[in-house]
């Protein structure tokens, strides 16, 4: 179990808290020490809307340890409307076929267990098709 690590990442996993660069106004997710757009020192907190579109996606069959019970699952590159791209699982897909360009929104779901079946549950962002109603 890695309790400090999961605690440290809470704001990003639960609320997509990133940064906006004070020098170039670039939006940054996840937070960094140096702005990837201009090289300035990044430090101003910026909450992302959680809205975006699918840039690419794949269906994972061979899951790594900790994810076996979820397989098969869809992982996507999601382009957030503010600019940055994040990697995330797609969820609540039902029968819906995934397509590049499809609008999606962030929801909070269980990512995996840390420390086996009796370990802690790790929650974080996944994305689902927009228009499915309340989270």
């Amino acid at each position: 179990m890695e309790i400090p690590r999961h605690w440290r990442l809470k704001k990003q996993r639960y609320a997509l808290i990133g940064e906006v660069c004070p020098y170039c106004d670039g939006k940054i997710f996840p937070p960094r020490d140096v702005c990837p757009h201009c090289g300035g020192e990044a430090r101003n907190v910026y909450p992302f809307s959680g809205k975006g579109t699918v840039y690419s996606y794949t269906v994972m069959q061979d899951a790594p340890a900790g994810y076996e019970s979820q397989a098969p699952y869809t992982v996507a590159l999601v382009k957030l409307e503010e600019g940055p791209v994040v990697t995330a699982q797609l969820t609540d897909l039902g029968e819906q076929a995934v397509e590049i360009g499809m609008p999606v929104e962030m929801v909070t779901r269980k990512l995996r267990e840390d420390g086996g079946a009796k370990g802690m549950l790790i929650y974080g962002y996944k994305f689902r098709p927009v228009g499915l109603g309340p989270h």
Partner: protein
Amino acid sequence: MGDVIIAGIGQIPVGEHWDLPLHTLSTRAALAAIKDSGGLRPQAMYIGNFAASILSHQANLGALLTDHAGLTGIEAYTVEAAGASGAAALRVGYLAVRSGFVESALVVGVEKWTDRIGPDLEAAAALAEDYDYEAMTGLTPAGQAGLLMQRYLHEYGAPRLAFAAFPLLAHANAVNNPYAMYRKAIRPEVYENAEPVSDPLNMFDSAPYADGAAAVLLARTSGLPEGYAHPRVRISGSSVAVDTLALHDRPDPLAFEAAARSTQSACRQAGILPADVDFFELSDTFSIFAALSLEAAGFARRGEGWKLAQDGSLALGGKLPILTMGGHKARGNPIGAAGVYQIVEAVLQLRGQAGANQVKNARRALVQSLGGPAATAVTHVLERV
């Protein structure tokens, strides 16, 4: 002269070596390279390895592997760059010998992969990714490749089955490589019916991870033994370039920028253009990587790398042979050792020792290893002197 010569080469068959520990794999390749050089004694040993610290519970490989090879006392340590670890270790050996600080250096790539199974190995492979923001989603390297292939098909409209040409070529070439894991050609139907791994990527788009070890011994021309037995092969270009670790942080993930930059830099050092090489040992970790590497090196326009594979251009008798001894797909992919296997195979070609797979009049090779989806790219130019 300051030329760095690859004086000796050694390799063991790639596969599932359940009976052999990490240090035996390494020692066999190391001793083979020393013997092949005519008995040169290395002053340093640089080790390419990816996963020993997690899969074998073993770090500090410099002390371990020199000890078992009877080389205790020489400088030795590990170089890690995921799938490019072996090639990065070669870069370190090249710098050491070229600078004159070291007269002769042994570079060993070694990976002990098959002590574990399934999910543990998928998790180990994912070490090459950004842990917090990629691996945490359940994405593996095969998944990254699936993301790239999906986007590629979308942007360029390439036919999905065109990618079959890469594994078919790799398997055809491995038939004559006694060190290859799969020495059997495959038919297109086998590819078409293969199980999906990370859709659209299937089982035959993915090189199989395996155990293996390969080694090369570097020396300067003046340090070669009397009556040196082989045509001399020198390193004329050597370059490492990196990109963002996470695929999602790249403005254009299909560009393989690091591969492009390390190719340009290695060729510039050698005073050549990529088109001047006689063959290209690229990294077909996944079939999509082969297409993107051909494009990054400038052999094909963006979105057209797959086309080169359709008309025989990349086969042994073609304009630009690739994967001449089976590539990662059919030789097998012992991750941290793979880069040294590629170098050994290129040296066999340049010496004229490649047997039935000999590329005619091979004088100059481009050899490229990738760590992750070209997060690290290591490129070398080798030439017969």
